[in-house]
């Protein structure tokens, strides 16, 4: 059994549950006196204002409910979050999915599988013939309850590309971030996915892992981490997967709360700013992605969604969706964006530089 670590910031009535409060923190303190704002930084490199390129990824967040309460979660997800996409909104999304120019559909949460209409939605969406259909599965959900045990088969049937989080190949580091028992449950789930063909060499059933650091430090080199993960998971458990995406924790929501509580906030922001990589800016996630929230609002990315920064466009809701109008907008930025441009850059698909 996995054991939940804590409660969401919302449930705890923490002031950091408020997007405004987070944005205030990110715009004050060291960013007034010591460090350049993200806008100033990208002015220097000629990327201001940040504008989208061709839309490639439609990322839909089907709800903030999750069976875990990970320490670093930028969604502030947990069992106590009740924001869940309704079937009506899903139908609006399906309409968009059928007509979009994007080649990738990316379902995320929370634990997307906990949405009661998840399967129906996947069945319908998979008929649209999108090239790459991703579901971000936290793995433990597959083991959480009998009704989820057949998820690997379900994913396989709809040719879903599974992307799952794994902060380390050791139990201690994984459980510290994600809760007691998460490591063992994740290993079991990975074995189940391997068993139906996911992650096997040469298999079309894609299984990728997401690595994000378990504390106040940046991810190491993606290729070396992938090598280490592959070796350890194979040697210790006989598990295989395709690619590892190294993702930087962005200083928002629970990770921001953790940084402040552990007195790491300033150092972490310095690290992000010092690691600013101009060549990552042109490819940050928001330049090719639109993010849809559980209630149908549109955002530049999942992070801006959590900061309640709706797209700066006439079109702000899925019911009015229009790709051409949406693409003609400026992306809303703040200091959290430094997380996307540090080192080799970071996005939901790993490094970008």
């Amino acid at each position, binding site marked *: 059994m996995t054991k939940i670590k804590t409660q969401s910031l919302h449930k705890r009535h923490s002031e950091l549950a408020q997007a405004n409060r987070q944005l205030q923190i990110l715009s004050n303190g060291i960013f007034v006196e010591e460090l350049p704002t993200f806008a100033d930084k990208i002015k220097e490199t000629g990327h201001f204002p940040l504008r989208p390129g061709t839309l490639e990824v439609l990322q839909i967040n089907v709800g903030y409910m999750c069976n875990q309460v990970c320490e670093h979660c930028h969604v502030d997800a947990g069992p106590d979050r009740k924001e869940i996409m309704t079937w009506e909104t899903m139908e609006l999304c399906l309409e968009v999915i059928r007509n979009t120019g994007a080649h990738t559909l990316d379902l995320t949460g929370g634990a997307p599988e906990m949405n009661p209409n998840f399967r129906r939605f996947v069945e319908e969406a998979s008929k649209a013939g999108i090239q790459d259909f991703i579901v971000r599965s936290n793995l433990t959900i597959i083991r959480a309850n009998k009704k989820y045990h057949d998820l690997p088969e379900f994913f396989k049937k709809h040719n879903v590309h599974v992307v799952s989080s794994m902060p*380390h*190949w*050791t139990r*201690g*580091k994984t459980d510290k971030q994600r809760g007691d028992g998460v490591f063992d449950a994740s290993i079991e789930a990975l074995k189940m996915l391997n068993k139906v063909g996911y992650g096997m060499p040469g298999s079309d059933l894609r299984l990728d892992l997401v690595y994000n*650091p378990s*504390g106040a*430090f*940046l*991810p*190491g*080199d993606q290729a*070396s*981490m992938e090598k*280490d*993960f592959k070796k350890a998971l194979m040697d210790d458990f006989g598990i295989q997967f395709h690619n590892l995406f190294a993702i930087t924790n962005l200083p928002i929501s629970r990770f921001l709360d953790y940084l402040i509580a552990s007195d790491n906030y300033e150092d972490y922001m*310095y690290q992000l700013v*010092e690691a600013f990589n101009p060549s990552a800016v042109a490819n940050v996630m928001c330049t090719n992605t639109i993010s849809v929230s559980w209630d149908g609002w549109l955002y530049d990315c999942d992070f801006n969604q959590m900061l309640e920064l709706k797209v700066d466009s006439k079109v702000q809701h899925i019911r009015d969706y229009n790709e051409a109008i949406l693409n003609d907008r400026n992306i809303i930025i703040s200091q959290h964006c430094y997380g996307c441009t540090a080192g080799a850059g970071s996005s939901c698909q790993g490094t970008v530089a």
Partner: protein
Amino acid sequence: MSYYDPKDLRKFGDITEWSEELGNKYFDYYGKVFEEGALTAREKSLIALAVAHTEQCPYCIDAYTKDSLQRGVTKEEMMEAIHVGAAIRSGATLVHGVMMMNKVNKLDG
């Protein structure tokens, strides 16, 4: 005031200001040393961590603890690396005991 200020580590690059050529040469060399080579960058990070301790340099301990974490090094691996450094350091002390023994034998044998 303490002699060591953690914030000074961020200013390490400033040493080039008073001697640009030597500073740059040093940082180029430094960067090259830590690149992936016959040893992996991860192995190099662990060596650096052990040496940081034998040198007892707070800046290096700070930097290479973080660097090791970034490379997925576990606590157990870090502590073992430090023991290697400590063993060599104490060994280096103790092996000089032979010198002392030789001297005693010569003077008072």
